[in-house]
């Protein structure tokens, strides 16, 4: 182990999700060949895909939502018919109330259901807990059965957590998290966004994490979840047939975020005119509704009737009126724009190396991005091969998600229920797939090192300690987590803890487990 525990720590924590406990031998393997350990996953591009029994495609899930919404509506109408004089009928107990549906916009908007849930289905709830003086708890009252949306969301979360807990190093899963946050949607947008959140990542992000940026960009912007999240399914070309008929027009939301957040970055050289142009270019990018007039319900379609006719000028280049191809050509050019290369390289290095990314490393990644036409595997390989990534001290603070996954890995606990992770992430301010805005969760230590956040982490660590600490040897875990890369202070603090639960809490909160 004397070999290079410090490099092993970098391999596992900077690039991965931390060492697994039990018999994994992660730290030893990483110490013997740190770079090779990290890069092994890059050689297995299929390993990024996530398939699990029961995980369905976006159209299937969309159809499930439509069916669910129909069912709620019917139940409500039936109740209304049965008791016409009563106050508004309640939906069946196992269903959320149907929210107002806006049928007036256009064919696409018809299918979208409500635009914003009042409350995410997995928002924190006050748990039932036993009163101190009560008798031992009888079986808890049966919780309301989950609806198809909640069930799907939890199944998707669980599959992701299990993958992250089980993978060797975790570099590819970290890349998934990075790109998923870069191209984020929010499950809080509505029922469709919630049911699609996992599928979006599986279908639009994962296949391209070790592929080409341009392919990921196209997959993302044509995914129904993104079109729903950023309202493009409502956007009509002012001069399109639908726009003329309905006297409605552009919605610039997606077009703006494509340039500001997905490709060029703020200050990347675009104007309001470019935003409007791109918005026109991608009018008609939508998904088929419940009636299926445009295609398979819940699948991406190009609705020519909503598309703004005519050529458009974007960033000084004219894109001829080629329908769907017009937008695809524009995205392809945005993907290889120099500002995009710079923006992506900077974010990438900031995520993995330091809040203030070393300029030389950013420049190198930018050059690789440009030279390889956005080969993301080449960019990741360059990062792992760089000296900077191994020299920079481990100053990044793990995000709440990283922290919880790393803790689960170290404890060798493969989650079988996502509830505790979801609750903890809500508490720590990183609700899964529900960032506060389209710019995703912050990626700097300052954002996560807020006093209340650290205190809450400690509370969660203490609870993990209370729950599991009696059954583990905290010094064994320290060996798995850091071995002789652990500081003498950390080792002493754990050795001198007054109990195993306390020792485990302190280990989970140690700089070796918090920094990456």
């Amino acid at each position: 182990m004397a070999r290079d525990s410090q490099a092993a720590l970098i391999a596992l924590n900077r690039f991965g999700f931390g060492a697994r406990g039990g018999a994994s031998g992660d730290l030893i393997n990483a110490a013997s060949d740190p770079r090779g350990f990290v890069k092994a996953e890059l050689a297995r591009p299929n390993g990024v895909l996530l398939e699990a029994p029961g995980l369905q495609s976006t159209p299937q899930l969309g159809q499930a939502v439509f069916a669910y919404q129909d069912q709620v509506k019917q139940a409500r109408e039936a109740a209304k018919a049965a008791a016409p004089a009563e106050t508004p009928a309640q939906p069946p107990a196992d269903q959320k109330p149907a929210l107002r549906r806006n049928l007036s916009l256009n064919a696409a908007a018809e299918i979208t259901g409500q635009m914003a849930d009042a409350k995410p289905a997995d928002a924190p709830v006050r748990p039932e807990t036993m009163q101190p003086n009560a008798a031992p708890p009888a079986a808890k009252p049966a919780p309301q059965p989950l609806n198809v949306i909640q069930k799907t969301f939890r199944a998707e979360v669980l599959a992701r957590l299990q993958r992250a807990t089980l993978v060797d190093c975790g570099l590819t899963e970290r890349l998934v998290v990075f790109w998923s946050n870069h191209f984020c949607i929010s499950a809080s947008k509505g029922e469709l966004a919630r049911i699609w959140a996992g599928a979006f990542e599986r279908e639009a992000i994962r296949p391209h994490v070790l592929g080409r940026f341009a392919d990921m960009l196209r997959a993302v912007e044509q995914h129904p979840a993104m079109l729903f999240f950023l309202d493009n399914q409502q956007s009509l070309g002012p001069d399109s047939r639908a726009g003329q008929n309905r006297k409605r027009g552009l919605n610039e939301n997606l077009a703006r975020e494509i340039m500001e957040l997905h490709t060029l970055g703020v200050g990347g050289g675009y104007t309001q005119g470019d935003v409007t142009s791109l918005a026109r270019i991608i009018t008609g990018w939508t998904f088929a509704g419940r009636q299926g007039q445009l295609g398979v319900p819940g699948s991406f379609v190009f609705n020519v009737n909503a598309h703004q006719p005519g050529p458009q000028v974007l960033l000084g280049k004219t894109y001829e009126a080629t329908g769907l191809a017009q937008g695809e050509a524009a995205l392809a050019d945005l993907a290889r724009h120099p500002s995009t290369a710079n923006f992506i390289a900077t974010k990438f290095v900031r995520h993995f190396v330091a809040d203030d990314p070393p300029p030389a490393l950013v420049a190198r990644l930018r050059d690789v991005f440009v030279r390889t036409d956005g080969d993301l595997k080449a960019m990741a390989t360059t990062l792992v091969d760089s000296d900077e990534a191994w020299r920079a001290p481990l100053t990044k603070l793990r995000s709440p998600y990283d922290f919880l996954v790393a803790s689960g890995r170290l404890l060798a606990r493969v989650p079988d229920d996502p509830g505790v992770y979801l609750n903890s992430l809500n508490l720590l301010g990183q609700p899964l797939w529900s960032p506060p805005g389209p710019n995703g969760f912050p990626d700097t230590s300052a954002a996560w090192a807020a006093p209340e956040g650290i205190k809450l982490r400690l509370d969660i660590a203490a609870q993990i300690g209370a729950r599991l600490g009696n059954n583990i040897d905290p010094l064994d875990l320290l060996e798995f987590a850091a071995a002789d890369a652990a500081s003498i202070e950390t080792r002493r603090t754990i050795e001198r803890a007054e109990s195993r639960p306390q020792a485990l809490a302190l280990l989970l909160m140690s700089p070796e487990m918090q920094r990456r």
Partner: protein
Amino acid sequence: MIDCVENRLLTSRRSLLLGGASFAAWAYLPKFAHAADGRDPRLIVVILRGALDGLSTVAPIGDPDYAGLHGSIALTADGPHPAIMLDSFFALHPAMPEFARIYRDGHAAVIHAVATPYRDRSHFDGQDVLESGYAGPGRVQSGWLNRALEALPRGERVSSGLAVGPTTPLVLRGNAPTVGWAPVALPQADDDTAMRLVELYRHRDPALAMALSQGLQLDKLAAGDDMKATRGNAVAQMRQVARGAAKLMAADDGPRIAALAFDGWDTHANEGGPVGRLAFLLGGLDGALAEFESGLGNRWRDTVVVVATEFGRTARINGTDGTDHGTATVALLAGGAVKGGRVISDWPGLKLANLYEGRDLKPTTDLRSVIKGVLQDQFGLSDRVLAETVFPDSAAVKPVKGLVV
């Protein structure tokens, strides 16, 4: 992984706990009330994790070396907070008036200079030995209390197993069925854990040290508590756990045996004398004993509460007005079934030559002999079962006779 996190949501701006109860778990006994005398015995085992300073809990005021060794935190028989004299030699910490009252009524006893067979100074190993009942450390999957349960005659289960609480202490783990219960407010990160982490961060990660310190402050402000009030919560927490446990055990079909643990006794710095950190904790323990007494009602007369810790602390205080890991300490017995009103001790003395390794109170009583005596008198377990099953390889450790009325 973290099932108890949900409970956290109840009190996301909770106040801090100085110490606290970590759990209470019960074993449901076969029903076997002693028909002859109508007794229906109950046993509660309270484990104090962190190593209790026995010399501050029951101070050998009559020992000429005590005051010098315990220095600034030594108890005295006079002054503003006088210790409570139990006899002409030993005095009880003034934070424990309830125990003193029960002692005067003849239903509480102290065993002093007691220790498990463990002689090193690791909390983890020490707690393992204390709870497993084995002579040395090592990973075992059952505790002596569970094995004692298994040895009892089987009868009709008085209640079926229910939801298991956050964790079962090793002492009660094993083949015999147990159920658990935990109060609503599970212990969050307590002050002691937080302070240890702040200390670690201070050395290794100043940015996190600042963030955590501020977070702790925020938490206190939000709770509207000053330090005194948060310490008061630790006391309230211990009482709350005891109250709930007593209520369950008082029921005719309730559990007859319970084990629970209180944390926070690792007083390396600023331990305090008649007032201060240890005093608050002892006050909490005292309150818990009073809750057991009142909550068990008529059953109190058949009850023995055993209070034990993994080891004691140094006889001489250290440079930070605290004490470091030591060896012998006290065990406490309380309950209507205890033949008490006495301090049981073969006092080794505190002269340097008499201290274990020149630093700790020397053990003269094996804790196992005390527990064996209680188990034998309460539940009629045989010498052989006690020496082979409950405390393996302990034939040489004879049960103390006459601990129970």
